């Protein structure tokens, strides 16, 4: 079968030729690189990648195909997918579909066969860029113009594109090799108390919800636009602020809601949720040069001195200088010293920039769900 050509053109005009896989169309977005060697299916379905074209630095992608379990939402969210080698016939006992067929089904454009390391170095040295990926228009100049005309992620509200439309009671727990996803009932009897939490869905990864259930919470998910009174109407023991795509400054309504909730109810935030909390506390966020996207970021817990290997996916970061004295920095990134965790005992809330739910990535940080549970049960201080 003859390979269909595709090209990727960055806003600065750099052009990469490759072959098309998945859907042979055109897409655009900010190009970011992810350094994880496993977990491409989780990456594809992570709503935080809305607005972004993802390139995997590991070259062999698609080896294990696609299975019905390893999803973080019910569809892929990446705008486009860039790999060195898009593997054909998958090999894994759980697969049901190939990567190519899956992307075609969801009209996600892929490009393979290009020098993804050169692209990664370009993004590392020059910062993230907007780009157009096309299998239908192979004119680099036209695509470069298109790329330059794309709106930046800064200040944009991508959350509204990925959040759920109505409140849902979530009842699926952690995954087991033999039994698959376990129901909430499988975990309930392990816990004396099952605090009720409301999770605000800014583009939530399902594994956060599964972790919440298996760590002894009763979870209700509400849309990003839910107001403070709507949230409090569920009479939660705690509120969870989820991950999500883009710039926290693009969702002022969410910041306002969180500001209103501060001090009224204990809160735990992850990723975008952490940034929103930072803004609600009066802090500032800034855009990182190329973000953190991968499964090997070392984070130090300043209280214990221990290092966690964390899963990360974010482009913005909370500026520590902008935070008031009430906020304590609990975790730092050992690679670049950026803030990875905050705790505000007076407001009964804490947050982390990274992903303790992993999926993909190491499970080193799951203790945070336990911490939230124990905190809500009065067994642990912040």
């Amino acid at each position: 079968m003859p390979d269909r050509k595709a090209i990727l053109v960055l806003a600065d005009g750099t052009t990469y030729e490759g072959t098309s896989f998945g859907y042979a169309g055109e897409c655009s977005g900010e190009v970011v690189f992810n350094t994880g060697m496993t977990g491409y299916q989780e990456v594809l379905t992570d709503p935080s990648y809305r607005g972004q074209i993802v390139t995997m630095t590991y070259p062999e992608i698609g080896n294990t195909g696609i299975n019905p379990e390893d999803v973080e939402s019910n569809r892929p969210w990446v705008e486009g997918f860039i790999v060195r080698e898009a593997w054909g016939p998958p090999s894994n006992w759980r697969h049901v579909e190939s990567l190519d067929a899956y992307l075609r089904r969801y009209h996600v454009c892929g490009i393979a066969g290009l020098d993804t390391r050169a692209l990664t170095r370009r993004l590392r040295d020059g910062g993230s860029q907007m780009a157009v990926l096309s299998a239908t228009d192979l004119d680099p100049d036209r695509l470069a113009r298109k790329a330059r005309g794309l709106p930046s992620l800064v200040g944009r509200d991508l959350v509204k594109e990925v959040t759920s439309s109505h409140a849902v009671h979530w009842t699926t727990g952690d995954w087991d090799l033999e039994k698959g996803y376990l129901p909430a009932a499988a975990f309930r009897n392990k816990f004396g108390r099952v605090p009720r939490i409301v999770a605000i869905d800014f583009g939530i990864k399902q594994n956060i919800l599964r972790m919440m259930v298996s760590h002894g919470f009763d979870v209700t998910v509400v849309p990003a636009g839910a107001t403070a009174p709507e949230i409090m109407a569920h009479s939660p023991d705690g509120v969870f602020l989820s991950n999500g795509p883009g710039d926290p400054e693009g969702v002022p309504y969410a910041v306002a809601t969180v500001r209103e909730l501060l001090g009224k109810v204990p809160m735990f935030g992850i990723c975008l949720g952490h940034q929103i909390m930072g803004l609600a506390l009066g802090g500032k966020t800034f855009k990182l040069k190329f973000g953190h996207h991968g499964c090997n970021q070392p984070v130090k817990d300043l209280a214990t001195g221990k290092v966690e290997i964390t899963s990360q996916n974010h482009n913005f970061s909370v500026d520590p200088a902008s935070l008031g004295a009430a906020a304590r920095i609990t975790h730092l990134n050992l690679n670049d010293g950026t803030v990875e965790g905050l705790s505000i005992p007076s407001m009964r809330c804490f947050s982390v920039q990274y992903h303790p739910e992993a999926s993909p990535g190491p499970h080193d940080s799951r203790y945070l769900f336990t911490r939230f549970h124990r905190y809500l049960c009065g067994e642990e201080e912040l």
Partner: protein
Amino acid sequence: MPKRSDLKKIMLIGSGPIIIGQACEFDYSGTQACKALREEGYEVVLVNSNPATIMTDTDFADRTYIEPITPEIVGKIIERERPDALLPTIGGQTGLNIAISLHEMGILRKFGVELIGASFEAIMKAEDRNLFRKAMEKLGLTVPRSGYIRSLEEAIQVIPDIGYPAIIRPSFTLGGTGAGIAYNREEFEEGIRWALDASPKRTVLIEQSVIGWKEFELEVMRDLADNVVIVCSIENLDPMGVHTGDSITVAPAQTLTDKEYQIMRNAALRIIREIGVDTGGSNIQFAVHPETGEMVIIEMNPRVSRSSALASKATGFPIAKIAAKLAVGYTLDEIRNDITRETPASFEPTIDYVVTKIPRFTFEKFPQTEDLLGTQMKSVGEVMAIGRTFKESLQKAIRSLENGVYGFEEMILPSVPPNPAARRKTITGKLRKPNSMRLFYIGEAFRDGWTVEEIREATGIDPWFLENIRQIIAMEGEIRSSAEAFRKDAASDPAAFEPFLHRMKGNGFSDRRLAKLLGVAEDDVRRIRYAAGVRAVYKRVDTCGAEFEAHTPYLYSTYERENEAEPTGRKKVVILGGGPNRIGQGIEFDYCCVHGVFALREEGFETIMVNCNPETVSTDYDSSDRLYFEPLTKEDVLAIIEEEKPVGVIVQFGGQTPLKLAVPLEAEGVRILGTSPESIDRAEDRERFAEMLNLLGLSQPPNGIARSTPDAVAIAARIGYPVLLRPSYVLGGRAMEIVHDEEGLRRYLTEAVSASEAKPVLVDRFLEDAIEIDVDAISDGETVVVGGIMEHIEEAGVHSGDSACSLPPHSISGETIAEITRQTKALASELSVIGLMNVQFAIQRGRIFILEVNPRASRTIPFVSKAIGVPLAKLAAKVMAGRKLVDLGFTSEIVPNHVCVKEAVFPFIKFPDVDTLLGPEMKSTGEVMGIDSTFGTAFAKAQIAAGMVLPRSGKVFVSVRDEDKEGVLPAAEVLKRCGFSFVATLGTAAFLTAHGLPCDTVRKVNEGRPHVADLIRNGEIALVINTPLGAQSKADSYYIRRASLVYNIPYFTTLAAARAVSLAISALIADDLSVRSLQEYHGTARPTGR
């Protein structure tokens, strides 16, 4: 946490000689550990019996003991040095076992030595199968079902619980020797009987077989703060059932989803914590059922390992170096990542390429044993290759093997008639039973139209790997069908072939393989490729998938858009490494390469290393200024030279591999440093060599070059039998044989090697009862200095690599030594040697013959350097760079006051049915060195270091051929004075008794029972002296040698060795062995603490 200040002096134990399963990876890890600890200001005391290691260079430790690694000897060193701590985890299984013994003997406690890295309890928990299983059960993890038995009846009781297929392992044998697999009751009973016999304590472990399951390994590191990271995941292409050392392995794991991988990662974290490895690296092996994902834990090594060396090279994360720093108290986040410089070591490397390791086998050396792979490791070396895709890295690894394969070469299936059913049957057999060539049979199967599923069914190999191979074979078909067009048009319009060439090169096809498939010359492929602009680019190994800038030029080639080589404008030299370890070319050559690098760096050159052996010090990115992890083929080396533009290339340090490239590289205009390829040819070409000896008035054994069988017969008749036969251009005595008559000669020429115009056979008169001498010398073109003269213990006829030798010589006269020195210098001058030269002499009845001259680094260079305290390889590199020996201060011979004995170490125990008799074909894998004040004690140390347990009393079995009977008397008399008694077969017994040596008699093996082999098995024999008596008796004495081997009874097959061992035993009895460091021997010792 800061480093510990309560420790001042730390002892490290190396892994001893190179054996199958323990190769130069432990020199790599040990050298890193030495460097790391000294960097931190600790005093390092090192013990290792292997002189061919970099770590035993006196620069790497404060006190270097080249002494036998036994608990007794190490105990003496501890008593003398009083170290504060012992780091037992960098010396392989040897280091760990010694630490266990030292603890159990109370030596560590007596001298207050702390085990750092892993405690005694942790080591035992990981090493003792029962304790390990209990620990795993506690964690809720599964290990294969198993049970220990002491009789057939017990075995039959436990097998229903374990089930078939079952693995049968005799316990307490050396290195997992002789495990077997039983698929049914009959095989089981047979296996149990054999295993009970094979186990010195008659204990056998029966284990559930997980054959066919997917096999994975994780390299795990932990620090004192309980931070744990996974450095690398490795997936074996060969499923369970093939020892991981013999498996093709790939990093990272390819066929696990993140969820499945995290199950394994979580298990690894819990295991290292439960076992209690406080600091450092461990390797954990897992098996995963291919259809259910069920996971079992196979084993854990609480130390650095072969896999950790591979993982270090595969990721750029130096496990051993970091393990050493963790052992003294640092935490991972306090250690900097050398490559990125700005990020800490507390992270998990991510890679953006695929790494493939392929083991290197030498079944051709042991024709009596079948080429079959199982749970017993048999490979002697390995290669690693890096590519952007699996296909590229696999094909690069294949051509790195230096086995004459440059891709998926077609297999010759000789015994098969051109009949598809028979062919299919042969291929099926080759796929079902793992063997060293299985990869290539898979290629054949795809050519025959087998499906991925059919091959998976036969091999158990994951379809992902198979589909990749299928695609390679399919591309070969495409290349073949483009051949005609390529031959017609490519030269005139190369650009038209750019997409084709780029795609094929990107999938790892070598020029040589392309040439074969296209029907053109290799050089044409390269020329056309260059004309089309298809050239290799270089990418960096950076631990982080390009997230951070790499400051260390650790490079691999690929066919992509961006080139990151960024060569400097400095004055630079390329040093070519030795490639995979094999018998005949091992760590000694890596030692020389690394010295070359050090020396040239001192001379102000930028040093560029090229090698593909992941076990070595040379492929540590820390060793050279720039490292290219690449195959050592003309294509790959030339591309690097074109990229770097060095002032020259050094080929004489890496053994035959780079030497073979000298002429082809020079033909491409590359400057070869040191002795010219012309001189090398003059020494290698037999006719030109003979002319030169004539010119110099030197003698060689009568010889001739046979280009046909009648030729050979005529030459042999002229020069007289016995004759030594060998193909030209060989290393390690490959296919070398001594024949005693025409019948033997004809058999050799039909079965082993055929003589032809292109590949002549060399026929030399074999010198009987001659003493062989090895000489290493160095020359700068003006001054020649003999580095060392070594007298072989075994007579000429035993390959020099297999023979024990003594420096200085122990029996030849000063006059002869002077004459040998004169001849060596004459040869070096005549050949205009610049660098090193090795000459082999034979002395027969006072006459000196020259056997061979090699104008390059020899296997004995490290031994000689350590014996005389002069780094010959380093001096040679400086000489090649233009320095003079006068300026370097080395102008006269050094004759040490001490005696150094080198002894070879053999892999026979790993190969069932192989005779242990030595001959002209090299069979040893490694060597040890014994140093002491007398020949007897030095020889004794060498024997002990080689694993012999020399008896101090007991019964000696003597069986020698008639002409040796007189000759055995001196040895027997010494042994009698030492209190030994004798037993012999009828003839020898009568002879000994008649000469005043009372002797019991015993039956020969073919005379009924009990016979001599029974006595050996019953432990009644302490020592065996047995010289073989011609072809027929060889078979009889074979059983004696094999039984001695299995029961680890010292046996000697030459009179010279018997004499030497008698002296060694008497020295042992007279005087307990003392220990002394190299620094003290060479007078360079600085005072140390305490």
